[in-house]
């Protein structure tokens, strides 16, 4: 397997190397996140015109859609990392998978709340049991389950492997839930509500949205790198490289 993986990627799997790598990149990722975020917010809240049908309420889209996208993107990353962790038992993959879960849960929570706040003025209801919303809710429970299972174990690596297994089961489950809720909505007629569909969105509204999507990606990287770095310190506590760091950063 080591034959086709480039050497630098292989080296990156080593905790001290990744620690340094992530430490260098993290501040930049955060800066980019804040920068793109600020630009996106200005574009969305100030520059973009009010929507013909929804007035100014549609502006929630600039945080709702990127959060929804991130909730699913992170879930994909978590799944890939979980798979690598289970098959090849790479410590870094375990940490990445476990530390992605809280960030994913945060974005999922934001998606549900902002979606609800958007739904009330638009559809007249705080919640509806359509496939997308229900799947998002199930996704939140999946994240919480992974976090809960991880913390239920004394041995953190064992907990990470068990939670990784759960994550993979959950990944298979979410599309199944989406499918069954769709079916269920067709059975109980009148429950399908046409969500604010992908109508032709004007460029004035599109570019802040894309900008915010980029910003949230960078934010995820920044947050993940900090969490992973701390986890690596905790896991590798007995090693020399950790001792050096602990002593050099005394007082921080």
């Amino acid at each position, binding site marked *: 397997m080591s034959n086709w993986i480039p050497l630098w990627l292989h080296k990156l799997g080593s905790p001290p190397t990744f620690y340094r790598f992530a430490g260098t990149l993290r501040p930049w990722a955060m800066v980019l996140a804040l920068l793109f975020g600020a630009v996106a917010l200005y574009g969305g809240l100030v520059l973009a015109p*009010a929507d013909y049908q929804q*007035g100014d*309420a549609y502006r929630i889209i600039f945080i709702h859609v990127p959060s929804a996208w991130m909730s699913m993107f992170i879930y994909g990353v978590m799944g890939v990392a979980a798979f690598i962790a289970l098959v090849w038992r790479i410590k870094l993959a375990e940490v990445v998978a476990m530390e992605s879960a809280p960030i994913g849960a945060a974005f999922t929570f934001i998606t549900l*709340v*902002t979606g609800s*706040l958007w739904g009330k*003025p638009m559809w007249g209801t705080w919640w509806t049991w359509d496939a997308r919303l229900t799947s998002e809710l199930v996704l939140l429970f999946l994240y919480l389950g992974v976090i809960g299972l991880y913390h239920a174990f004394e041995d953190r690596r064992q907990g990470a492997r068990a939670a990784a297994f759960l994550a993979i089961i959950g990944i298979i489950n979410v599309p199944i839930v989406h499918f069954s809720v769709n079916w269920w909505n067709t059975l109980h007629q009148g429950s399908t509500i046409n969500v604010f569909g992908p109508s032709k969105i004007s460029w004035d509204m599109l570019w802040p949205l894309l900008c915010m999507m980029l910003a949230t990606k960078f934010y995820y990287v920044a947050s993940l790198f*900090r969490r992973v770095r701390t986890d690596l310190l905790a896991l590798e506590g007995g090693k020399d490289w950790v001792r050096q760091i*602990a002593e050099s950063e005394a007082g921080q």
Partner: protein
Amino acid sequence: MSPLQTFFAMGGYAIYVWPAYAVFFIVLIVDTIAPRLRRRRVLRELRARLARQDARQQRARPDRASVDPIITPPSL
């Protein structure tokens, strides 16, 4: 209404738009701060543990420096 007031009114939807943005920022700020606090705690505990280890080694071998004994290879 001044332009700023118009902005904050959000066409009458202010009670939906601003809480939504607030949730977004608050959750992400918590997500930023919590790992920072955890990192500090981990480093603190790590340093305490290392200090205890060093103290134990000092007591065990008071005449030697507090480094792990290195087994010197036989000279070739």
